[in-house]
């Protein structure tokens, strides 16, 4: 009822206790193409669905390497994502320069959260319109984090963000308990199956699917198009029952 009066800027609360601009920014993430991530005790797999703005154009790359031990998959405004990715890369490099060792992932995500929150504090600034799934392996094991435009961040066993991600989330919820001890191949299969669960009407191919992997003794790398094609054809079509 009060929506339009209280959503002019980031510094106005509405009577229900929400800052609507931040809610709208989260909406921008929900409208972006889907990305999902899942982790075992040794590896983290990030899968994303890419879109091409035009038949003639390339697909927008959504999985980025932040450091050898951290990769991110994004959903939302790609330009904001690139900005944050550049920030994360710089922080990792500074940490290497000073300490000669890897940036702990939780602290990197906390820095991103702080930066995002700062954007929600000023009149005339807008929040970042991107959700980041950051996955990596550091001295405390594998981690998968989601950051939100509000500056919040949460750690997950598995998560999917973006449009039509609910089916993927349901698939992951059903299967996540077996992920911890899974092999890398099995984990990738689960990721592709979750992707298929959410993309029933879309033709999946190595052109619009991207997979990034990072883990123990495994610096971040992306699967080649042959490997993606193989995984897409090997996995069975996932039937999502309504229950």
């Amino acid at each position, binding site marked *: 009822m009060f929506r339009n009066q209280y959503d002019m800027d980031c510094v106005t609360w509405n009577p229900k206790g929400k800052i609507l601009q931040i809610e709208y920014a989260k909406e921008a993430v929900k409208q972006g193409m889907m990305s999902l991530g899942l982790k075992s005790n040794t590896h983290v797999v990030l899968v994303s669905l890419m879109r091409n703005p035009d038949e003639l154009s390339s697909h927008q790359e959504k999985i980025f390497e932040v450091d050898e031990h951290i990769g991110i998959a994004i959903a939302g405004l790609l330009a904001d994502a690139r900005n944050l990715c550049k920030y994360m890369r710089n922080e990792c490099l500074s940490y290497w320069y*000073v*300490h000669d*060792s890897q940036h*702990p992932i*939780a*602290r990197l995500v906390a820095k991103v959260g702080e930066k995002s929150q700062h954007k929600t504090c000023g009149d005339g600034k807008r929040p970042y319109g991107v959700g980041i799934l950051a996955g990596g392996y550091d*001295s*405390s094991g594998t981690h998968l984090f989601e950051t939100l435009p509000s500056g919040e961040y949460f750690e997950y066993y598995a998560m999917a963000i973006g449009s039509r991600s609910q089916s993927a989330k349901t698939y992951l919820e059903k299967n996540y308990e077996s992920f911890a001890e899974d092999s890398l191949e099995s984990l990738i299969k689960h990721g592709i199956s979750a992707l298929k669960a959410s993309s029933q009407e879309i033709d999946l191919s190595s052109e619009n699917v991207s997979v990034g992997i990072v883990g123990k003794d495994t610096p971040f790398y992306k699967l080649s198009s042959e490997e993606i094609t193989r995984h897409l054809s090997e996995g069975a079509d996932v039937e999502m029952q309504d229950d």
Partner: protein
Amino acid sequence: MLDPTPKTAKDHPEISGGSTIGIKYDKGVLLAADTHLMYAGCYWYKDAQRIHKVADNCVIASSGDYADLQMLLKKLKDKNDYDIIAEDGHQHYEPKDYCKWLANVHFNKRMRVDPYYNSHIVAGVDSKSGDKFLGTVDVHGNNFEGNYVLTGIANYFCNAILDGNVTDDLTLEGARELMTKCFTVLYYKDKSQGDKIQYVTIDTDSNVNFEDPVTLESKWDYHFTKHLTNDHTRDVRFKN
């Protein structure tokens, strides 16, 4: 606009400590330093602690300017506090991280021609892999690691004693013997060295043990010093 006045920074340490030595033994690392601070050639403080604990698994021993050391210890404490406060369930800074950070700080200050007049030994045990770490940072920002490290004038006197004797199966007693030998030589030869030595051990279970300072045995009542020097001042010079 560049400031035309000449830059004036100190070019020497003020109240400073002598040399420090670190040795790796089979189950950990042994550090030792004396407890004397000098001021322009005179003993100034006799009970100063020159070895400090930075984190649960990291210890630092310093020679050189004591005020600069106290400033650096504040910064190191802030760093350790940040590691704890980050509250992500783990403490990520290892002794190697502290050592590299110190080396970068020293190098940065040296490039501004205003150095911290310290040489440090950073010692500890990696909490994840259990590896022993022993590194040294000097006033210029040089950073080395090794089985034994020396700061200050010990570099000149003690390399001959330690080289080849610090092996992978050296026991704690063997390391202590080597240390005692080194510090005895230093006490005889170096005017800025005292005879009260503090030993600190860190073993591979990350137990840090600060021992009370012990006094070195040394012999000064040689015939020459007793009889062939200024006799009339002998009672003043020797207490007994």
